């Protein structure tokens, strides 16, 4: 069926809603990559088998990940008219019991994590109902109560492999509104007014980039989604694509319409096979409804999206290297300008935005720039998704308004160090970022404040380090990473990092001198100032921040002879 009118979209919305809230029990199994690894898929198949063998009137569907990774596998149970219940740490042996209880309108209380009486999908509000009052409310769980879910609004609650469910909670209505009633320039204006900044790390104003792309001469242009999430410790984009792929496609569709671009590309890393599979499926479903292709929603606008896969090179997250990779070349950055907006994929003007940047677009258009910019702080609007990992108690996917302090994220949401150990530092921004000591945890997480303490936002990985973590080893780890992933084009990065690594190895082996620390500082400065691309320029950050905040750990490794 091709959607041509609001009535068409409305009829699919109704159908989608009956899938989310059927008049019989519905069980959703969290099967994103990590859910599958802890047994989610086996559980899904077992449950399907049970309901088929007994012809139970129960719907068992796949769902994405709600982000509470520590409690996986997570299962949602909806009994008509009652609160939806999240079950945690479910094993395959629980399958039979969950189903037989669901048939009786009940749930296994011992597995219940929380209940969801209603849910604000932002694009629509769903009321499930009351009941199961002895189970804690979603808002009473500290891991959830300090979060604000804008990007993750659907994750773990809808079936990512069924477009009807996305439309069921109001998906593609923003695209419909845009394509049928908003002039393209107004779309760009609205995104500019929202204050949305690039979520890939640099924080460039998204609306401005769109405007520059649109004004660039030429009629054949590209929009590209950067899904080459390479920072170790970051998996927000993977979850966004695996749990709610249509959110990304809708964002790209609206952006393409605003910029009057007809070709879209998603450049995705090879390490994410499930995300590739779900996106491919989502693209097929969107085409079948006429949400991609010719004359979308009867508006006269044409647009389609293709997937281009990466092949395991960290440097390809850099914009010019990414373009080279799409073109079938080795991913080596080139000097800018010209910027991509002028000369991008195959020499054509190209707008490149991160997955999460695109994911913000549907709600900005759907709810308006004023609604959006009220979230976060001035100059840093909206929310940001972080992967809170490492030696923290509650590992998981966390979404908070920009400007939230590290303290809130690590202690209120993360519940401090794992196994009761003290937290020493947090590393943000991947190999381009730095380590922030515990005494600076009142720092608000936004683009400027993170820069002030010597690190950067990056794509959103927060790796917690505890008292057992050796910070010099961490510095060496990152320099080894950056040195191995250096494309080899410019000397400061290729040779400078190599020598920084040799010095760090020497220090860790107990053969370093005070002079080595001085040399490390000097080399960092040179690599930072003279490297060709952003990766080389930021690679010394882990060394510089550990030298600044944890110098005593370096000093301890210098023997008396070396002083």
């Amino acid at each position, binding site marked *: 069926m091709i959607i041509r009118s609001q009535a068409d979209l409305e009829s699919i919305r109704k159908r989608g809603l009956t899938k989310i809230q059927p008049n019989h029990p519905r069980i959703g199994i969290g099967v994103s990559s990590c859910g599958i690894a802890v047994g989610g898929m086996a559980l899904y198949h077992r449950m399907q088998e049970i309901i088929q063998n007994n012809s139970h009137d129960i719907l068992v569907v796949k769902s994405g990940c709600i982000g509470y990774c*520590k409690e996986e596998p997570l299962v949602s149970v909806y009994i008509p008219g009652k609160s939806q219940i999240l079950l945690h740490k479910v094993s395959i042996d629980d399958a039979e019991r969950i189903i037989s209880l669901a048939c009786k309108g009940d749930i296994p209380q011992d597995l219940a994590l929380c209940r969801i009486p209603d849910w604000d999908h932002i694009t629509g509000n769903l009321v499930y109902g009351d009941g199961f009052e002895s189970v804690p409310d979603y808002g009473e769980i500290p891991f959830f109560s300090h979060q604000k879910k804008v990007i993750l609004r659907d994750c773990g609650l809808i079936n990512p492999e069924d477009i009807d469910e996305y439309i069921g909670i109001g998906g593609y209505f923003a695209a419909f509104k845009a394509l049928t009633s908003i002039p393209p320039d107004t779309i760009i204006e609205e995104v500019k007014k929202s204050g949305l900044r690039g979520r890939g790390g640099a924080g460039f104003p998204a609306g401005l980039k769109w405007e520059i792309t649109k004004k660039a001469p030429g009629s054949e242009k590209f929009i590209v989604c950067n899904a080459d999430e390479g920072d*170790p*410790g970051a998996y927000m984009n993977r979850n966004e694509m695996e749990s709610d792929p249509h959110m990304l496609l809708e964002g790209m569709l609206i952006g393409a319409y605003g910029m009057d671009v007809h070709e879209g590309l998603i450049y995705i890393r090879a390490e994410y096979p499930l995300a590739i599979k779900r996106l491919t499926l989502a693209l097929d479903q969107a085409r079948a409804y006429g949400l991609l292709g010719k004359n979308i929603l009867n508006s006269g606008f044409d647009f389609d999206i293709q997937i*281009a896969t990466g092949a395991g090179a960290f440097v390809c997250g850099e914009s010019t290297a990414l373009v080279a990779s799409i073109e*079938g070349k080795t991913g080596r950055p080139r000097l800018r300008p010209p910027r991509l907006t002028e000369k991008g994929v195959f020499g054509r003007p190209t707008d490149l935005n991160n997955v999460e940047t695109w994911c913000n677009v549907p709600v900005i258009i759907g709810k308006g720039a004023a609604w959006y910019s009220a979230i976060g702080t001035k100059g840093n609007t909206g929310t940001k998704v972080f992967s809170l990992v490492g030696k923290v108690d509650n590992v998981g996917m966390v979404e908070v308004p920009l400007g939230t302090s590290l303290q809130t994220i690590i202690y209120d949401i993360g519940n401090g160090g794992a196994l009761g150990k003290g937290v020493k530092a947090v590393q943000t921004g991947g190999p381009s970022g730095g380590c922030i000591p515990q005494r600076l945890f009142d720092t608000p997480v936004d683009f400027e404040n993170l820069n002030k303490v010597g690190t950067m936002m990056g794509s959103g990985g927060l790796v917690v380090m505890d008292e057992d973590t050796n910070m010099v080893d961490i510095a060496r*780890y990152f320099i080894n990473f950056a040195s191995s992933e250096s494309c080899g084009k410019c000397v400061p990065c290729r040779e400078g990092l190599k020598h920084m690594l040799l010095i760090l190895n020497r220090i860790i082996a107990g053969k370093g001198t005070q002079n080595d620390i001085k040399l490390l500082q000097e080399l960092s400065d040179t690599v930072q100032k003279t490297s060709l691309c952003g990766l080389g320029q930021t690679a010394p950050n882990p060394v510089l921040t550990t030298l600044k905040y944890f110098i005593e750990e370096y000093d301890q490794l210098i023997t008396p002879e070396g002083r």
Partner: protein
Amino acid sequence: MDEKSLDEIIAQYASPSGRILGILREIQIQERHVPMDTLKLLSEKIEIPLSQLYSLVTFYSFFSLQRVGEHLITVCMGTPCHVKGAVKNLKVLQECLGISGESQDGKYLQTTPDNKFTVEIARCFGACSMAPVLQVDGDLYGYVIPEKIPEILEKYGWKR
């Protein structure tokens, strides 16, 4: 890889964007490495110099010119895995399988003499919540501690 299979892969990639890496990716997945003669054949078919294709296969870590063993073990070396003991896990794997710890240009790829197991390292799978993680033939194993490694290997026919 026979010519027909290669033609089928090439046919899937009509548009120039992402074409070459896409084709190489399919070859790597199907053959578990990129055979040199397939690379030569591909070069003729898509009219791209062999030197360019060779540079791609050696630049990107997803590709391997060497045939890998029956089971491919990938150890994640992301930051969360690193702080939670990935280095130790890799050492235990090397000991169990009797392979060397030597790496080349920061890349690590070692195969057992009986060609049963190949061990490589990855930068980050993005499965950080279950750190440390490793993958065997595409199946993820999370919360891996050294004591669990023999157990995992036994599933794939390894004997103590």
